[in-house]
Structures are given as structure tokens and as C-alpha cells.
């Protein structure tokens, strides 16, 4: 394969990864890493460096549209970033101590459970939870216009404290395993804080860039960010994420939830496989 063909193929795969990542609030690493290593024979260390870049590219490429359309709730995001960034540092510090193998199995099980739990749409009004003092003081309430449903959706986030705790945990996992962990952030916002699914994925998308940027410096200094690979990944992903961010509003919440659960199942299997085979 000539270098120029490589760049074109990487760009095309990244376009898809960015599109899906923007819709689902994930970083696209689940597509980028296997595609680069298995399909194109890229060294795994360099593939991981490129996937960190892909997380930031997904986030930045889509976030402008999500913030403008109010799909991303920036107050929820900024509050929860306290947890994800603090968790990421903890994870980086613990990285040498804990055994990755068990973490992959643990992560796989949690993600698998989340997929199962999210499969069932919340029964609205089944058990009305009171808005806690934190959610009220933080002024998290918001609304967005749902293009697919053709109406305004008002929502009140709940259980802010539990959400923060879960984000800390998600941050620890990203710090330890070097992944974006949108796969944990979205279920936490969906199941605990009861945000609409589109708000959960868009807000996760908004946040993952910050967590990834925190660790990108390390990958750069270690020489894991190869511009010849990460460059086309970044451009392809940003273009895909831009398209994705203009698509999310127009597809139904049910569809978003369905695709998310399907992808989550794949992530769970990947992680369990890594843990068992390591």
C-alpha cells in the first residue's frame, strides 16, 4: 500500500468512527484501534495514540453544534467534569498498582450490565424521584427542541451526587485503561440522572474531549502520537463528528438508544475478551 492510499483509507474509516462517536457520545476508539491494528498493520502503541486524538476530535468536531442546539447540557457537563478529571488523575496514579486484566473483566461486566439496563426504556412516571438539593442548587434544568419528535423537551436532571460519584469512577477507569469511557458516562447520565438519551450522548460527547486532553500530553511525550497516522484520523473524525452532530437531532430517541445498546454490547465483549486473553 502506498502512503497516500493509507491516508485515504484511514480518513474514510475515521469519518465513520467520528459519525458514530458523535451520535453515541463515545470517542471512536472501539473502531479506530481495531481498524488500524488488524486491518492496516499499525503498531498498537501508535494506534492507541491515534485513538486518544480521535476522542478529542470527536468531541471538538461535534460539540459546537450540540452546544448551539442545547443538546449538550453544559452545566451538567461542567459539574460532572469535576468527577471525570479527578478520577482520571487517580486512575493514572493507580495504573502501576492494579492489574489491567481484572479491570478489563470488571469494565466488561459493568458495560454489559449497563447495556442490559438501558435496553428497557425508563418507565416514565413509574416512580417519581424528587429533585435533590444538589440538582436544584446547580440549576441543571434545561430543555431542547427535538427535531425527530417535533417538540420541545423539558427535563430536570436528578441524583446529581450519584452522577458525580459515577463520573469519578468512569474517570478512574479511563485513567487506568486509557480509554474515553463514554461507554460508562452515557449509562450513568441515563440511568442515574435520568437525562433524555440524546442529551446524555451529546453531553458525554462534550465531556470526553477534556478527559482525553488531560492524558494526551503523556501520549505525545512518549512518542505515541504519530502525525502520519493521527493527522488523517483527526481530520476524518472531525468531519464525521460534524455530520453526526447534525444528524442526532433528526433521528428518534428510540433509535439512538437501540444503536447505543448494540455498540455497548460490542464494547463489553471486546473488554471481556481482552481481560480473558491477556
Amino acid at each position, binding site marked *: 500500500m*502506498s502512503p497516500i492510499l493509507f491516508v485515504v483509507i484511514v480518513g474514510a474509516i475515521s469519518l465513520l468512527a467520528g459519525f458514530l462517536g458523535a451520535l453515541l457520545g463515545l470517542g471512536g476508539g472501539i473502531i479506530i484501534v481495531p481498524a488500524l491494528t488488524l486491518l492496516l498493520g499499525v503498531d498498537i502503541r501508535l494506534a492507541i495514540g491515534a485513538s486518544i486524538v480521535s476522542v478529542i476530535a470527536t*468531541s471538538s468536531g461535534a460539540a*459546537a453544534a450540540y*452546544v448551539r442546539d442545547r443538546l449538550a447540557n453544559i452545566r451538567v457537563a461542567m459539574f460532572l467534569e469535576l468527577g471525570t*478529571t479527578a478520577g482520571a*488523575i487517580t486512575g493514572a496514579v493507580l495504573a502501576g498498582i492494579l492489574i489491567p486484566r481484572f479491570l478489563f473483566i470488571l469494565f466488561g461486566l459493568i458495560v454489559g450490565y449497563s447495556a442490559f439496563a438501558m435496553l428497557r426504556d425508563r418507565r416514565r412516571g413509574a416512580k417519581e424521584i424528587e429533585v435533590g438539593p444538589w440538582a436544584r442548587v446547580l440549576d441543571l434544568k434545561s430543555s431542547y427542541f427535538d427535531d425527530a419528535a417535533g417538540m420541545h423537551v423539558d427535563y430536570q436532571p436528578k441524583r446529581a451526587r450519584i452522577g458525580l460519584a459515577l463520573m469519578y469512577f468512569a474517570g478512574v477507569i479511563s485513567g487506568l485503561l486509557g480509554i474515553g469511557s463514554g461507554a460508562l458516562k452515557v449509562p450513568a447520565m441515563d440511568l442515574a440522572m435520568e437525562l433524555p438519551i440524546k442529551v446524555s450522548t451529546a453531553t458525554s460527547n462534550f465531556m470526553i474531549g477534556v478527559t482525553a*486532553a488531560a492524558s494526551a500530553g503523556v501520549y505525545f*511525550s512518549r512518542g505515541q502520537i504519530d502525525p502520519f497516522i493521527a493527522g488523517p484520523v483527526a481530520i476524518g473524525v472531525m468531519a464525521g463528528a460534524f455530520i453526526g452532530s447534525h444528524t442526532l437531532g433528526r433521528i428518534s430517541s428510540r433509535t439512538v438508544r437501540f444503536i447505543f445498546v448494540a455498540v455497548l454490547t460490542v464494547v463489553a465483549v471486546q473488554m471481556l475478551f481482552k481481560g480473558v486473553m491477556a
Partner: protein
Amino acid sequence: MKEWVHTAIVTTLRVGVVLSISIMLVGMAVTLVRHPEYFSSRPALGALISPGAHFPNTLLDVVSGIRHGRGQAVVMAGLLVLIATPVARVALSVVVFVKVRDRLYTAITSVVLLILLISFSIGLVAA
């Protein structure tokens, strides 16, 4: 007032994205002009994506690479702009929340920025 917060964030992200993509495209064009063999040569790829691939991994390398007109150093500069964008977004949020006198969110975003800067320095030391 709240509208302003959103506009500021959207603008930061757009500037970061457009700037980084432009720089990377320039870098790629420079690379192809200087290495016409990349259009045809197969063995050339191996040296670019294998563990022994050579590319800048310090700011000084990037700067000196750009001075020598190396396309890949320019692409790397674009990637660094991309990496800096979320950090700039958090830093700008602090400023915006100070301006709109939202004390709670000024505190929250300041702590996030602080944690980010700490993790950056830990990362650079650890590596």
C-alpha cells in the same frame, strides 16, 4: 446572559477545529510536495507506521521541524492545537462565568481547570 456563555464556548470550539484542520492540511500538502514517492512507493509506508517511525515528540522538535519545512512537524502542530482546544474551552468557561458573576460555576470550572493542569504536569513528568 446565559446565551453569551453558549456563544463563547461554541466560538472557542469552532476556532480550535478550523485552525487545527487548516494547519494539518497544510502540513500534509507540504509532506506530499517534498515526498512525491508517497504516491507510489510501497516500502515508504512501513517506515511511517512501524514502531521505529521517527516524528517529533517535544515542543522543541515540532518548532525546529517546522523551521526546516518538514510537513509532519506542521501536522503535529495542528494536532497540538486540537489537543489544546478542550483545555482552552475550560479556561474560557472560567472567564465567562466570572464575567456573568456565577460564583458556583466559576468555582466548579476553576477546579476542573486546575485538575487538568495538574494532570498535564504529572503526565509530562511521568513520561
